[in-house]
């Protein structure tokens, strides 16, 4: 994946970090409400990372913790696993969800700080299907061309949750679904868990 796209992912994921205490849940998702949610999340994430009163690793962990509330991780994780979900034990399902959530949160959150000076702006919002809204955003970077990304947001309970991101027309969830299926085919489900663990359990920078 080109680094530019990765940088967008990380901004978007980071921006989605925080819970939103906006309007009440509705059967369909208000595009305007979803756009405000994304905007607000982005601002909160940048402010959390920009503070320097605690070690970077702690700030990144804080943002990951906040991000957890901005994504429907269970929904995404299950979609990405596809038909394999029903073939594994309950314990394996739980372990997968734990690792997958860490993977989503850690992979993308660890990138944001590397792209200081980027700005995220909302360029549009529209309904998607009967339940969701798509929020269109543009990331402007100090170097390189701007990147357009679309967030699929669903109102659930009393909050908005991100259920997918598309960058340059490529859905993250669909891409991962295909990648995971390939790992399972070649190395089994425990091979996938090992791969996810390896991606999320690296040692951090040393001092």
């Amino acid at each position: 994946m080109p680094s530019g796209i990765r940088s967008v992912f990380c901004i978007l994921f980071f921006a989605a970090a925080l819970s939103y205490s906006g309007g009440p849940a509705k059967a369909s998702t208000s595009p305007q409400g979803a756009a405000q949610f994304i905007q607000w999340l982005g601002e909160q994430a940048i402010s959390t990372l920009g503070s320097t009163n605690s070690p970077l690793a702690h700030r990144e962990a804080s943002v990951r913790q906040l991000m957890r509330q901005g994504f429907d991780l269970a929904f995404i994780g299950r979609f990405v696993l596809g038909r394999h979900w029903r073939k594994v034990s309950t314990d394996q399902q739980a372990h997968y969800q734990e690792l997958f959530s860490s993977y989503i949160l850690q992979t993308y959150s660890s990138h944001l700080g590397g792209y200081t000076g980027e700005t995220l702006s909302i360029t549009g919002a529209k309904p998607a299907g009967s339940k969701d809204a798509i929020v269109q955003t543009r990331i402007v970077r100090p170097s390189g061309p701007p990147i357009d990304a679309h967030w699929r947001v669903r109102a659930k309970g009393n909050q908005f949750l991100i259920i997918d991101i598309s960058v340059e027309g490529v859905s993250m969830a669909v891409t991962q679904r295909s990648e995971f299926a390939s790992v399972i085919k070649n190395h089994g489900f425990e091979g996938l868990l090992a791969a996810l663990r390896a991606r999320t359990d690296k040692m951090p920078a040393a001092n």
Partner: protein
Amino acid sequence: MSDKYQARPLTKQRSRITAVVFALGLGGLMGLGGLTGFSGAARADFEAGWLAYQRTDFATAFKEWQPLAEQGDARAQFNLGILYDQGKGIARDSDQAVRWWQRAAEKNMAAAQHNLASHYLAAIGGNLDFQEALRWLERAGNLGLARSQYTLGKMYGYGLGIPRNMRMAVSWMRKAADQGHQGAQYNLGKIYRDGNDLPANMAAAVYWFRRAANQGHARAQSRLSVRYARGEGVQTDNVQALFWATLAAAKGEPLAVDYVTEMRRDMSSADVALTERRAAAWKAEPEG
């Protein structure tokens, strides 16, 4: 771990001697630099890089660490690998990350060995290299790194890249669990509960589930709850069973959510209220 690889500050006198030796061209002959520590200036450069890293100025961190890494400083090599791996301050490049981690790993830096192994296990592009992963994990595991020991336990337990060997799995899991690794404690609990190729031992399963549960491991809390409910390896105690299931359910552990619903039906309202109060006041006790 960090102490072992921390650049050692030199006294002013030793710095001067080092400078003279290098001026005479004897540095390589005496093995200075990569093996015997770095000058005060190099240490200052490393710290400048670290401070820049902390304020998310990764471009500056890269500039400070790169020359040190080229000179053989294992910590700088390791951190440079992190910058490349995560695309911090520089375009993401896993080949470069591997290159720098390899250099630090060859100097016996366990963290670098672990990350190198993680690269081979991460299956980027669908390919795993279990053999390389095992090689580096065993080196890091033997240096005492709990994460590597845990991963080795998993690989032996599931036969990933090697024939399944439960004795080896237990041996590595035990090393990590003794150091307080929650996942290893939980997995040891499962191995003792199920037996697999070894004799089951419910008391040992309860011991390890409890240690992980006390640290806040939700699945271990859920499994400990079941042991109390069934009286397996511990005396039956429905209040304890509900207590641990309540904690696990609060973290979204799906089985525990069902247990809580079932158990509450069969218990007195006084017991339920007491358990809820205790669960609300409970705090995780991380080991170490």
